[in-house]
């Protein structure tokens, strides 16, 4: 017993010493999970389906921004305002590519099935197929190895919180995540298209009777989720590089975040992402690095068993 207490105390010591730096990293990760989780939540809201191929939209965002940044930057090292220009270009390209990929995906793997009124299992299987097809195609065309994103060099600390340095990279993630999420939240809450999305989420059939174009609304929903997912892919790639399988683990975690916050709930997705990012990051003090990915999964199973509706509850229709 004494030995166990000692063992635990050691871990808590690590936690105490590393708390703030783990927290900072966790919040940054959490914003990326949140961005991707929004995609799951939006699609789930209107179609009541989990978009299994969302991981590949994330990957597409990362790849597209990689190639555009490589073309734009060449071998130069940006400084000053150019740094922000590069980041902005990456965000715009990642978001656009993600939105395009999501729209295309909806067109091919979802709409064809929806036209035929196919059973739900068909959508899941078709989306899994799309996911496998897309990342392996990326692997074939661009090689199956990790490549680091052209660097705007933003790893230097800007300020410290209780001795923990906060890198510019983290600030960029938080700022991008917060801004995009606010815009999206307002878009869904206050615009005509957003009202269409909420109407379809509440009752697609009635919405169509009221003159909402269902096909267009669903396409826009995919595009919105895809845009955030694509930006997530760029920001993730900036830190970890791009590789054809880059989507799998972050997307699984983002899905966990979406469920944690209440799937179908936009605010829930962001909150779930933050909680997951922080908890996962703090768990580093307790588990070996090899089991890092197990933590998120354990959280997922726990949430599904204890409170399957998540923290804020389901329903996109009521979220705004």
């Amino acid at each position, binding site marked *: 017993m004494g030995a166990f207490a000692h063992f635990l105390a050691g871990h808590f010591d690590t936690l105490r010493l590393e708390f703030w730096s783990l927290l900072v990293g966790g919040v940054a990760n959490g914003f990326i999970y949140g961005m991707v989780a929004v995609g799951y939540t939006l699609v789930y809201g209107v179609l*009541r389906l989990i978009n299994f191929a969302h991981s590949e939209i994330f990957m597409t965002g990362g790849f597209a921004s990689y190639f555009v940044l490589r073309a734009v930057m060449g071998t130069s090292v940006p400084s000053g305002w150019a740094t922000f220009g590069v980041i902005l270009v990456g965000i715009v390209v990642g978001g656009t590519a993600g939105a395009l990929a999501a729209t295309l995906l909806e067109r091919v793997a979802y709409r064809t099935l929806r036209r035929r009124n196919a059973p*739900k299992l*068909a959508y899941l299987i078709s989306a*899994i197929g799309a996911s496998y097809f897309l990342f392996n195609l990326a692997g*074939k065309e661009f090689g199956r190895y990790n490549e680091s994103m052209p660097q705007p060099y933003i790893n230097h600390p800007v300020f410290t919180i209780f001795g923990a340095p906060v890198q510019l990279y983290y600030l960029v993630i938080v700022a991008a995540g917060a801004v995009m999420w606010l815009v999206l939240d307002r878009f869904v809450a206050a615009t005509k298209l957003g009202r269409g999305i909420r109407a379809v989420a509440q009752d697609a059939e009635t919405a169509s009777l009221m003159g909402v174009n269902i096909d267009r609304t669903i396409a826009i929903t995919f595009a919105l989720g895809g845009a955030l997912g694509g930006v997530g892919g760029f920001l993730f790639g900036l830190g970890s590089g791009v590789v054809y399988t880059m989507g799998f683990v972050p997307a699984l975690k983002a899905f966990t975040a979406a469920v944690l916050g209440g799937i179908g709930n936009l605010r829930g997705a962001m909150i779930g992402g933050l909680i997951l990012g922080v908890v996962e990051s703090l768990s580093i003090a307790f588990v070996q690095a090899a089991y890092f990915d*197990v933590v998120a999964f354990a959280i997922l199973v726990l949430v599904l068993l204890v409170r399957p509706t998540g923290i804020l509850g389901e329903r996109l229709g009521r979220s705004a």
Partner: protein
Amino acid sequence: MAWWRQDWIRRLVTSLAVVAVVELMTGPSGSFAAPTTGLIGSYNERVSVYGLFVGRRWMVFLVLALVFFGVWSAWLRWGPRTRASWRSTMATPREMAARRPVRWGFYLVLLVVAGFLPHLVNDPYWQSVLVEQIAVFVLLALGLNVVVGFAGLLDLGFVAFYAIGAYTTAWVTGALPTPAPFGIHLNPFWAIPVAIVFVMVAGILLGTPTLRLRGDYLAIVTLGFGEIITIFANNLYGITGGSYGSGGTSGSHPIPHFSISLGPIHYRWTLAPVPYYYLTLVFVVLFILGFSLLEHSRIGRAWTAIREDEVAAESVGINPLKYKVMAFAIGAASAGFAGVVTASQSNFIFPATFTLQLSINVLVLVIFGGMGSIPGVVAGAVVIQTVSMYLIHTPPAGFQESDLYMYIGALLIVTMIFRPAGLIPSRRRRREIILSEAGEAHADEVLTGDVA
């Protein structure tokens, strides 16, 4: 109507797009350093079709797209009539009953062919493929068919049961770094019941909490479970040997081959694939018989009822959770046995064998063959695995082994769009899909959850 919205224009554009994707898939590979090799090369590379035609890939592409467009248009024009004439030849239940002896005769012929198969393919590569890639995958597909086909539950972590079966075998035969239970090293024959019991218990343990969930959540949880099993197998060096595989760092404990010593009969299996093929074939037949009996038993009918309408099933006294857990456990059994065969035949097992890709591979066998149809699933496994292994063995230009899963992913989408009931559909499944498409019922009610 705007001119670009006309049907034939859409068909033409779709044909061009489909063929463009196929060109990309079959073209040369690229890399980050040279991204244009694949992207542009797929269209601009020189090709020669048996020397009769020499040109660029995009020319082939245009011809193919036009052919595709033509066939498609012709199908729309004359297809319905042809299809109707096929339908009129479809059997009624009474005729089906009359054909039953013919069908059983056909299966018997297939079995005899399967018995002679290793001697027909006198090539060592194909003989080992028969065991390691076909027989084992038939077993896995049969098991997953119980879960996906019969009970309508999407399990993306089926590989976990295969891994548990294999590692249990390694454990009870004394081949893991961790000592065998009670220090007894069993013959792999005795590992069969132990492994099957272990995977069934694992199925119950995983199923009981998770099968309460809606179907789409279940898919993600099982996916995670499959990943976790691999992570543990990879990292528990003291127990599973970690990434070094079952022998651990020393690598000195092979998993023994099967051996039999019954009265006057003494036989010992070796690395040679053919004896393993016959052993596996016996079990494949047993599993097929068992699962077909199960399909039409009380349990099988309960699965059908749950799959078609869970609420209705519950209201007539079927406990959905109980039957879903049973599907998990029973489906896992054949995967557990497949694990025993793999472990014993290859002497060493490695975590790298038990990947998510393998789960998806088994899933595609079931989907392509026909969910819920045992002949379909077996045919699907044989066809897809044979084609895959042929492609790996004699790769055509532009094909790499790692491209295989790209084709598998595409096959999943194509099957779902064009033939959702699979190659040899289960009659019941096809009816469900047709009804669902007509808006009269939901197939896989389990998955619809709270849809308004």
